């Protein structure tokens, strides 16, 4: 039970919760029961059916409503006299600025994506408000405390960027099912139903220079008066048959790899079976109820379909899109809750997998991969929420010696299922909380300011509203109230090579980058370098001192993120629609020095999240080497088939 001292600290506290999902519901409930009386809660989401298995403050009747608002109403039922202020908004909104954060005694995160976490971390540092971070996935979870100057900030330990796949792996040489999913979702689906203006790498390049890309473009267009069934089979044959034949003609590619098998509809399907006995015009014309599976009588999403069944689904789903949902074409993006889209992508991915000798997957599994669905249960969230409140109370009392990072394990280590560890001291090289300058090696004669802004400032540093300065010269900024001259000036600067800027950037220069929203300043020392390795440093830049490590499967000039469209643009950190998430890594009993941090490649931290939409939720194996040193090793492979106990 809380002591008198604790109770009065709790009673007078004002707390901010960010997130009203899986962790959020449990947390709000426990805070209220523990005597907290002034709680603010931010969440931009609305309630979905799949939330109801664990976000227990919500009911079926609440689907579609604001999570923050409904959570508040539910808790007031058993604690009617406390003050809960809900915000149905994005925590990244400019309204939630440093002054907003300053009003709280502690901030408690229950988020599900890296971007938002970094953002909140920076604001808490700027506002000098302690932050309690947390995350869960399946049976695993953790809680960490971040107090400026005393402990690491959330970004002191590098969190890996989301998993990316080289373009050629997706377009030509898939070896895992997830590659087929990305192909089906971000290339084929996007090409057929999405924005036609989007650049798309769907077509395989042949060694035959004569086959122009224009010709290939036409293959996807429906011919005048073409029968829908025929059109479907033609597309099928083109992507699963013809494109594979073209790829096979590149001998080099297949020297050390298994050759794929082209698949043609005539070989897989019996003729005439294209006509089904069912009526595609169902009782309702509701687009969301349209389903190829239902039409074909295939009810179980856990079944793994044969090549023939996948082909039937593919063609049926294709047809249904055209018959029922043509008006959405050009705007459609893959949505995991869109049944027909999931069926189409599953079927397409499976047919491709079949070609390449990759094991097929059920709709259920495919949907999880394509939708980056988090797997989550109520119990872990409840445990984590309890641990968060315990830390929050310590924070309110400034009980600094007792702050703990706590790990909730699936299998006990040294008899412990809940393992507390002392927090680490701030990382002196952390550019976020220690203001240590970074070093950037770059070719100042070739790289433009735009390259720097996109690949470093946005992608690596996570600053979306930056100010880029050289000394007192303002080279670039983003803002609403800029006058035309300045905007033109900045636009011109972006296209200039670094050494030719009005205030030239050369070796030895220090650039200052600021993000006003996050109140973050970062100094970067520039070092000119002529050559960069195309494979290892495809961006032509090397940032060091402290960096985001990125887990790319294989190096390549371009890479694709599961969910993003492919393009020539540099890989950027995905926005809100991409929910990627990381759990902290490498706990150790002692306050470790940076040099002891194991190689990030071998120690991919596990991703955790508390609600829908995580990425990289691989298996966790805990290796207990030593008394105090623990290493979390996660397999970032997304194959979920073997996860079940």
């Amino acid at each position, binding site marked *: *039970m*809380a002591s008198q001292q604790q109770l009065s600290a709790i009673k007078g506290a004002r707390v901010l919760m960010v997130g009203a999902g899986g962790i959020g519901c*449990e947390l709000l*409930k*426990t805070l*209220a*029961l*523990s005597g907290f009386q002034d709680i603010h809660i931010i969440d931009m989401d609305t309630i979905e*059916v*799949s939330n*109801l*298995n*664990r976000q*227990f403050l919500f009911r*079926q009747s609440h689907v579609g409503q604001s999570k923050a608002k409904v959570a508040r109403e539910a808790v007031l*039922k*058993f*604690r*009617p006299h406390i003050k809960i202020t809900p915000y149905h908004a994005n925590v990244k909104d400019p309204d939630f600025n440093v002054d907003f954060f300053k009003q709280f005694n502690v901030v408690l995160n229950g988020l599900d994506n890296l971007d938002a976490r970094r953002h909140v971390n920076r604001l808490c540092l700027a506002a000098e408000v302690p932050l309690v971070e947390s995350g869960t996935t*399946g*049976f695993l979870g953790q809680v960490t405390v971040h107090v400026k100057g005393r402990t690491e900030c959330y970004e002191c330990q590098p969190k890996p960027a989301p998993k990316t796949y080289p373009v050629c792996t997706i377009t030509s040489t898939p070896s895992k099912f997830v590659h087929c999913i990305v192909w089906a979702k971000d290339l084929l689906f996007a090409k057929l139903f999405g924005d036609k203006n989007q650049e798309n790498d769907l077509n395989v390049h042949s060694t035959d220079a004569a086959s122009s890309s224009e010709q290939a473009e036409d293959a996807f267009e429906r011919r005048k008066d073409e029968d829908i069934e025929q059109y479907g089979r033609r597309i099928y044959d083109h992507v699963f048959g013809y494109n594979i034949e073209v790829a096979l003609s590149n001998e080099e590619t297949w020297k050390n790899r298994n050759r794929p098998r082209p698949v043609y509809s005539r070989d897989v399907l019996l003729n005439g079976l294209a006509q089904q006995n069912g009526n595609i015009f169902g009782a309702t014309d509701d687009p969301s109820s349209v389903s190829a599976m239902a039409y074909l009588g295939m*009810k*179980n*999403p*856990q079944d793994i379909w044969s090549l023939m069944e996948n082909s039937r689904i593919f063609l049926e789903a294709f047809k249904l899109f055209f018959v029922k949902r043509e008006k959405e074409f050009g705007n459609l993006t893959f949505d995991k809750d869109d049944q027909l889209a999931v069926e189409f992508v599953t079927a397409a991915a499976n047919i491709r997998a079949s070609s390449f000798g990759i094991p097929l997957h059920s709709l*259920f599994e495919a949907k*999880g991969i394509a939708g980056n*669905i*988090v*797997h*989550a*249960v*109520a*119990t*872990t*969230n*409840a*445990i984590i*929420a*309890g*641990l968060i*409140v*315990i830390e929050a109370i310590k924070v309110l009392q400034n009980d600094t010696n007792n702050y*703990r990072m*706590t790990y*909730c394990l*699936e*299998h*006990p280590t040294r*008899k*412990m*299922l*809940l*393992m*507390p560890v002392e927090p680490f001291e701030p990382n002196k090289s952390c550019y976020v909380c220690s203001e240590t300058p970074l070093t950037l090696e770059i070719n100042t004669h070739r790289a433009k300011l735009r390259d720097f802004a996109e690949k470093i400032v946005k992608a690596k540093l996570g600053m979306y509203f930056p100010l880029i300065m050289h000394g007192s010269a303002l080279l670039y900024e983003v803002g609403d109230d800029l006058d035309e001259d300045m905007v033109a000036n900045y636009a011109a600067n972006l296209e200039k090579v670094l050494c030719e800027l009005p205030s030239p950037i050369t070796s030895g220069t220090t650039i200052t980058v600021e993000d006003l929203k996050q109140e973050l300043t970062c100094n970067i020392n520039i070092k000119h370098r002529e050559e960069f390795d195309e494979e290892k440093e495809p961006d032509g830049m090397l940032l060091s001192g402290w960096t985001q490590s990125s887990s790319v499967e294989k190096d390549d000039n371009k890479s694709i993120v599961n969910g993003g469209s492919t393009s020539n643009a540099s890989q950027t950190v995905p926005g809100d629609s991409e929910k990627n998430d990381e759990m902290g890594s490498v706990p150790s009993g002692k306050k470790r020095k940076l040099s002891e941090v194991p190689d990030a490649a071998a120690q991919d931290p596990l991703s955790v999240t508390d609600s*829908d939409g995580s990425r990289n939720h691989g298996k966790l194996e805990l290796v207990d080497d030593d008394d105090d040193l623990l290493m979390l090793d996660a397999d970032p492979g997304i194959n*979920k088939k*073997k996860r*079940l*106990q």
Partner: protein
Amino acid sequence: MDGEVLTEQETALYDRQIRVWGVDTQRRLSKAHILVCGMKGTVAEFCKNIVLAGVSSLTLVDDRVATEEAISANFLIPPDENAYGGKTLAELCCDSLKDFNPMVRVSVEKGDISSFGGDFFDNYDVVVASCCSLATKKSINEKCRKLSKHIAFYTVDCRDSCGEIFVDLQHHRYSKKKLDENIKCQLQYPSIEEAISVPWRALPRKVTKLYFAMRVMERFEEVEGRNPGDVSSADLPGILKLKKELCEANSLNESHVPDKLLERLVMGTREFPPVCAIIGGILGQEVIKAISGKGEPLKNFFFFDAMDGKGIIEDISNPESGS
């Protein structure tokens, strides 16, 4: 729902958890019947978890009339005396729990659980006893063990900011994952009587002090004829004296049962909600594991102390007896 396949409604609702534990576990859960007694904060948490998980039924036993103290850490009961006045804890919790998952049948069983016979317990697959005297716990455990059906038996109690779970799965077969394979395993659990009669000096030296402290409290209540949790600061001298006696009788150094810890357990009469959430969560996970037969269940005690933040498993069993 039909025998083998989950309904569409279940698939949609349980999607995220099926991705954690699989369809087979979900099916087994949907057939499980749970009995729970002692509706305070921790058990309320457990009930929420198990209802959300999608069991077949949950039966609540607690005839105690609601009081302000009893509901202080129980989020299932609105604190409005006009609403709760005169009703029992079980009745009040039942109404709220039904809301969490319309597919689970939640009901109340009136009466004193220590008077229920083996026939009664035979209706259940899992029995959780809380706020019961040691004698009652032993009696329920025995009745469950006498049945041919393997009933999973648990006790759970929180004092101050500490919590304890006891698990008895009798002879339990389960499968667990090792690398890429599923291997079949089994465990043999002692009854609660057998477990707590393991002589203290026979236990490993590093056994958590909380185990002993809980036994002292338990014994004090037994000797003094108190209801569980019915101790106050006035009892502290008596408790410390009892501790000395027990340590002596067990040839255990007193340092294993610190006075300060006992003081905390005595003074902390109200439940601490974060600990309720943690213990209720761990218990929920364990019950799901037991029902599914997948994953190694904890054997046989779990302790949590908010002061040091550790959640520890202790195996309190006698190696000689094979239990």
